């Protein structure tokens, strides 16, 4: 077997990651930037926190029905607003968005809580050995740290129904890879920087696929619920603000 490259950075040179804290206090000054002439990105800055994110969700709902707004996309600590450039001037909208941010209160969202069993390590958690070694932990200790908190769905992932999770124990913060590697997709439990991810499950009947990622895949959810079903109401399994509890199914050496 070809040895896999270990995590590139050493534990003591990851300042940009350790700066992210789980503090619930900071609501630092936001920043807006133009994304071309047809979108505006508001970055709340400061650390990831639930109140900040609840404020982003509120702002998202407040502006999504404005005339000339095509869509809104909450990110981690950020909000992207897509505009019809012929109807709205991006510069003017950026100023308006900042103004609205100032008077937006966190909208308390208490979504559903969903529990999922995780198989840590093994073929579908292929990065676990290096990941554990990087932190000087055993795979079992990594699994326990990962499964302990209740996670909140903060932002949509790149596929529907699943997303970026908040709540990761800072002891597991890990720099992304400099060079992405190919990993099987489908219900992946992964970590990138200070973010935890739950990948979209493989659709039944669709051949297994791989995709490039800079994140560290340490496990998967073998019986992940179907994330998206048009015959279900609502069709999307997870909404922003939903909670996820991971249960250790097994830790494969």
């Amino acid at each position: 077997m070809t040895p896999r490259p270990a995590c590139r950075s050493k534990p003591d040179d990851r300042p940009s990651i350790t700066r992210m804290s789980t503090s619930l206090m900071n609501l630092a000054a936001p920043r807006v930037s133009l994304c071309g002439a047809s979108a505006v990105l508001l970055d709340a800055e400061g650390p990831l926190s639930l109140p900040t994110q609840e404020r982003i969700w509120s702002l998202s709902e407040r502006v999504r029905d404005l005339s000339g707004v095509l869509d809104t996309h909450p990110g981690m600590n950020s909000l992207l607003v897509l505009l019809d450039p012929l109807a709205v001037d991006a510069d003017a909208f950026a100023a308006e968005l900042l103004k609205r941010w100032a008077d937006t209160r966190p909208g308390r969202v208490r979504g559903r809580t969903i529990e999922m069993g995780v198989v840590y390590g093994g073929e579908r958690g292929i990065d676990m050995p290096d990941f554990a070694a990087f932190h000087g932990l055993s795979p079992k200790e990594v699994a326990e740290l990962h499964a302990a908190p209740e996670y909140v769905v903060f932002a949509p992932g790149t596929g529907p129904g699943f997303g970026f999770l908040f709540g990761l124990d800072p002891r597991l913060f890990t720099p992304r890879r400099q060079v992405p590697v190919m990993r099987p997709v489908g219900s992946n439990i992964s970590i990138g920087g200070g973010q935890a991810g739950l990948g979209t499950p493989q659709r039944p009947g669709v051949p297994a696929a791989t995709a490039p990622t800079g994140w560290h895949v340490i496990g998967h959810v073998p019986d992940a619920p179907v994330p998206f079903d048009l015959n279900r109401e609502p069709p999307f399994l997870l909404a922003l603000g939903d909670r996820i509890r991971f249960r250790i199914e097994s830790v494969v050496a």
Partner: protein
Amino acid sequence: MIEIVQTAALNSVQDLGRFGYRRYGINASGAMDALALAAGNALLGNEPGAAGIEVQLFPFVVRFHVPTRLAVTGAACDATLDGRRLPPWWSVPVNAGQTLTLGFPRLGVRSYVAVTGGIDVPEVLGSRSTYGRLAIGGHEGRNLALGDRLPIRSCEGAPQSSAAGFGAFPPAAFMKLPPHTAARPGDLVLRVIPAAEYEQFTEESLREFWSAAWSVTPQSNRMGYRLSGTNPLMRLEATEMRSHGLVPGVIQVPPSGQPIIQLADGNSSGGYPKLGYVIAADLWRLAQARPGTALRFVRCDVAAAREADRLAAFYLGQLRAMAEAQLRAMAS
């Protein structure tokens, strides 16, 4: 109904995209060359967002089982209707039983087939665009295959196909690009607005970005275009970023230093630093760029981008007015 007689993977039903579902992780998809699709619809008197067929693998052959009117826009492919040549960007009536053939394009990459009333597949989450990742939209949520039958509205009383067609000037003839001092014939100049992380790149890299030729690599598709240049683009400091929403046209720079431009089916969010945005009004040009094309970037601001958007809207408006006058004259 129209029947797919010859196709290859990657040809699909697309409209102008799916909006309103980004908070669930669903991006717009939609036509890569939205201007060509909108122009095809204008030539038929359709709504701009009616669904058409995006053809990116040729030859592509369809048979019409009802009379209607069609328009072929986008890449200049050798289009024929029952063997009779159709000029590029042309609108023509078609009878039941006729066959449309699109040959390999001489210029450009993607052609669009529009029909009166649009391809009548069901709307899914507000759009008829095929979104392969979720297997929704378009025809059965997938790319077109041999033998597929797509619903279209029959236009009773449509003029016979012996009637004259009419066409449009392609937009490239109408919309001029600013010059790039180092560009060579055949290079594609694109206008770029700097992005939030622009200042984080080294001065040398920024100079390189604006002055060098960036080649479109074969790893380019509906998700995005991967570019390669002589010197990779470097940041002053390699900090990590949180995942945030992306829009088509965003130029991301992964650690390799070789830029990626996210497009219609690209990631809706990501964490790579962004150097700039190809303005929306130039995305159709990029969508028609073949692998190997050299790209040159010129700096642009929001005011100029808005002007370019207005020019595109004006072009489509003129096209629509001309087409509607033609169609009215034929109907009377």
